[in-house]
């Protein structure tokens, strides 16, 4: 009965590859997010979707493309991976954009070699 789940938990890949991270929430929330946490634990929002529509798109390279096939899923595809993309990526969801607590997934640790 996991609330927010992400796959994979760990991802190790070579520079230049394309990879995807999947996120699913079973809380019935309307809003989902992707965050990046770097090695210094600095947590930065990347994207937010509300009812499958993009509402927040921070200054993120266009190699990163989120896709929300339905309200319960928000996937993150990354093209041409670079060393600097190595980080932990967290998916989160909330009932409404920003007004309620966010529920976080366990994170995906991406290592680019």
């Amino acid at each position, binding site marked *: 009965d996991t609330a927010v789940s992400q796959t994979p938990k760990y991802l190790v890949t070579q520079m230049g590859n394309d990879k995807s991270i999947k996120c699913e929430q079973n809380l019935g929330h309307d809003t989902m997010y992707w965050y990046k946490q770097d090695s210094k634990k600095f947590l930065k929002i990347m994207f937010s979707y509300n009812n499958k529509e993009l509402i927040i798109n921070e200054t993120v390279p266009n190699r990163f493309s989120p896709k929300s096939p339905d309200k319960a899923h928000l996937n993150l595809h990354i093209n041409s991976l670079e060393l600097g993309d190595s980080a932990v990526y967290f998916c989160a969801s909330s009932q409404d*954009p920003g007004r309620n*607590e966010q529920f976080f997934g366990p*994170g995906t640790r991406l290592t680019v070699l």
Partner: protein
Amino acid sequence: SQQGEEDPQALSIQEGENATMNCSYKTSINNLQWYRQNSGRGLVHLILIRSNEREKHSGRLRVTLDTSKKSSSLLITASRAADTASYFCATEGNAGKSTFGDGTTLTVKP
């Protein structure tokens, strides 16, 4: 720069002592939230305080908000070793975007 800045960056105390963490922010907010992150895990929501509230309690947690000083504090009373974690504040302004602080790493020694 980050909306939320927290201090101290790291805090080490003995079990049973109180721990206080502070968060400062720059622009007006709708609410402020505190989260906890255990090593290698996702963030867990602790408490939300709205801009028209000054203080909120939840168990051993006490959060204050001073909008005139643009600051908030999280107090954990009677700390336990299991409280060891990183604590983040997150401010929500207009457009529904939450901005997280840099976090305070708390170590509670048994």
